[in-house]
């Protein structure tokens, strides 16, 4: 690596920044799979493993041998104290999995810390840009590299709503030096959780840049006959959420309410084309499940799709969605949105009631003419400023400029080792 590098944890917010900075910095990514994916997009990247040495492996092994037994013993000693539910000590439900977690993940976490240290010491790492700083490997790398003076910028993606979070979530603390947030809403969210305001910069969200360039399209773009398109976006909060049974039931309930509401819309307006947009992370069987709910509700989807989001939004007169970033993306793309039982700051995303009749009436009133109205345009502009700051489609450039400015503060001496 003859030029200084910038490490990217690859995600929706960092890929656009990576593309901007690739011309001036060597791109370092964590995994070989990311190298391959970027190569297909014409971006040359180096995996962080290129910086490992045999010494690193040996040091990690020594550290594992020292730390793993100490951690396992500490967990075993404290498990009864820590793992409590409903007034009962429940170490049995937690300790085995915690022990496996520590033993299995410790080597790779140590490796990430060591890589951060080594790359910082080499003087060839100018900066770190992260998509999310909650995963163990990214946190480890940041911890190692920051100790060596390398600045880190975190570019969060998720729209951290107040929907269910009890104010103690893992996203609320900053491990990087600077937080590049989409807009004032996100800045406020982090500030409320104690991130110092001077460490938060409003740049706009790079992964939303493209949404400002979406132009309305006719239903024919989706291969649908004429008639207003209403898209329903399902959600997927994942099996790793707290209270999984409730989360699954809640998603089903909201989706069924939305489908029942849209069935009412279609009963009044048979020309309405319903498009069901599945969450990209939803399991393969989700399409069949949602289709069955639609049949039960009397709704008739004209299309069920997992991708083509930009096309779907461009062609839609209205999006009805569960809590998701798609509500923001929809408005930025110029498509009004109703969020079922969830409020978003601003007036452009309308909070829909959690009952089919009211939701259907609300949706019916927005199917025709609202998307093109001056009032929606006004609300959209204000909403974009709240959620995407400058909202000019240049967030990636702005974050890149921020990274370059911080990179100027990073140590630049050549240490003479690491990958060349």
């Amino acid at each position, binding site marked *: 690596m003859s030029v200084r590098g910038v490490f990217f944890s690859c995600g929706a917010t960092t890929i656009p920044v990576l593309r901007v900075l690739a011309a001036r910095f060597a791109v370092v990514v964590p995994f070989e799979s990311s190298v391959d994916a970027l190569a297909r997009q014409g971006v040359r990247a180096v995996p962080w493993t290129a910086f490992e040495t045999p010494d690193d492996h040996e040091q990690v092994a020594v550290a594992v041998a020292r730390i793993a037994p*100490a951690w396992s013993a500490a967990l075993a000693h404290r498990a009864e*104290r820590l*793992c*409590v539910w409903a*007034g009962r000590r429940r170490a049995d439900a937690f300790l085995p999995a915690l022990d496996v*977690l520590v033993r299995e993940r410790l080597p790779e976490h140590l490796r990430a*810390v060591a890589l951060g240290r080594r790359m910082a010491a080499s003087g060839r790492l100018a900066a770190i840009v992260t998509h999310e700083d909650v995963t163990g490997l990214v946190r480890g790398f940041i911890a190692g590299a920051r100790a060596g003076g390398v600045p880190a910028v975190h570019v969060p993606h998720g729209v951290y709503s107040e929907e269910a*979070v009890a104010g*103690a979530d893992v996203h609320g603390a900053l491990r990087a030096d600077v937080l590049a947030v989409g807009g004032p809403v996100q800045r406020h969210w982090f500030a409320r959780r104690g991130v110092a305001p001077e460490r938060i910069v409003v740049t706009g969200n790079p992964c939303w840049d493209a949404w400002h360039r979406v132009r309305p399209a006719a239903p024919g773009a989706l291969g649908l006959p004429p008639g207003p398109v209403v898209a329903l976006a399902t959600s997927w909060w994942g099996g790793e959420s*707290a209270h999984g049974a409730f989360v699954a039931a809640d998603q089903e309930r909201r989706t069924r309410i939305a489908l029942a509401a849209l069935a009412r819309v279609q009963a009044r307006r048979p020309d309405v084309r319903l498009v069901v947009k599945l969450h990209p992370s939803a399991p393969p069987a989700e399409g069949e499940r949602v289709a069955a709910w639609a049949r039960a509700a009397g709704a008739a989807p004209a299309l069920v799709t997992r991708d083509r989001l930009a096309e779907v939004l461009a062609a839609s007169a209205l999006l009805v969605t569960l809590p998701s970033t798609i509500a923001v993306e929809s408005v930025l793309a110029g498509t009004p949105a109703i969020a079922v039982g969830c409020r978003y700051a601003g007036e452009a995303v309308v909070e829909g009631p959690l009952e089919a009749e009211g939701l259907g009436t609300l949706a019916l009133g927005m199917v025709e003419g609202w998307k093109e109205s001056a009032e929606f345009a006004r609300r959209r502009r204000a909403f974009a400023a709240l959620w995407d700051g400058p909202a000019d489609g240049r967030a990636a450039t702005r974050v890149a400029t921020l990274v370059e400015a911080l990179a100027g503060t990073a140590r630049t001496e050549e240490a003479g080792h690491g990958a060349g």
Partner: protein
Amino acid sequence: MDGRRWARLAARRENELLRAVLAAPAAVLPAAGPGLGAVASPGVISDPRDLPAGAFAAVVDRTAGDAARLAALVRACRTGGTVAVVARGGESPDATTVTTLLEAAGCDLVRVVPYDLLGASSPWRGRLGPEAAALVAELDAQLASPAVRAAARLLEREVVAALPPAAAARALVVAHRRGTDQAAVREPSPPRGGPAFVRRALALMQDDAVVRFAAFLAAEVQPVLGLAGDFAAWLLDAASADGSGALASGRARAAGRSWYPGLDARRFVEAAAHRMARGVVGTLAAATPGDAALADTFEYPVLQVCNAGLDVCLGGR
């Protein structure tokens, strides 16, 4: 932090309980302090044996004493009047002994109301061990939130009052002096957990700080006192009753959320999982002090394990 916020809360609770039994003329020993309103106090008398016999409609002693002291209280009370004594958990005489002694001295028990669950002399604090200071400091920090103080007051009024007296730091023993034609009737325990309590509790749960306080109670208080009870299950059941979310809906809306049955249980489970994960990561960091940053890298995967473990405990509810 040394538990001062809880102490103030418990003092107010005691005054609330005492005000409910005071009737003029009353004697309060030691002398009535602020918070009891206008009380016809006998002055600086601290020994009930110095009180005139049969002179008071209500006699209150904040320091439960021996049989002789209790008998003197009863003697100072008019027949049919009220004798109320503060018994302290873990100290002699406890509420049961005070009750027995008052009955032996000529009283009929009316009620026993435990309070001050987390106070300085509570069984909870007595069993905490080396983590006591940290937990009491955390309790005090949580009580900085007005919503948490409101939740703690509700807890004292509706939950602690129904616990066995031995679970709390103090209990007010209320009795009537026998001697009138009409015998005193022991009050039935007031109904607990009624619709008003449910509405109020769910409304308070819309505040994140209260959710974290509930997780604190579930993790740090329940097991120490051996109090069984699944708060998440209670939240699910309570929220399913018609009208239970009447207050909660408004509070949730103000916080930018839509309230619906089950949401509070989920928020509580989340807070419990986060608390547990924080404890696990803290344990790892403490085990190898030079690797605290490494322990922090485990926060997210540990949280996932805690979520999965709590799901097992929830049994699919």
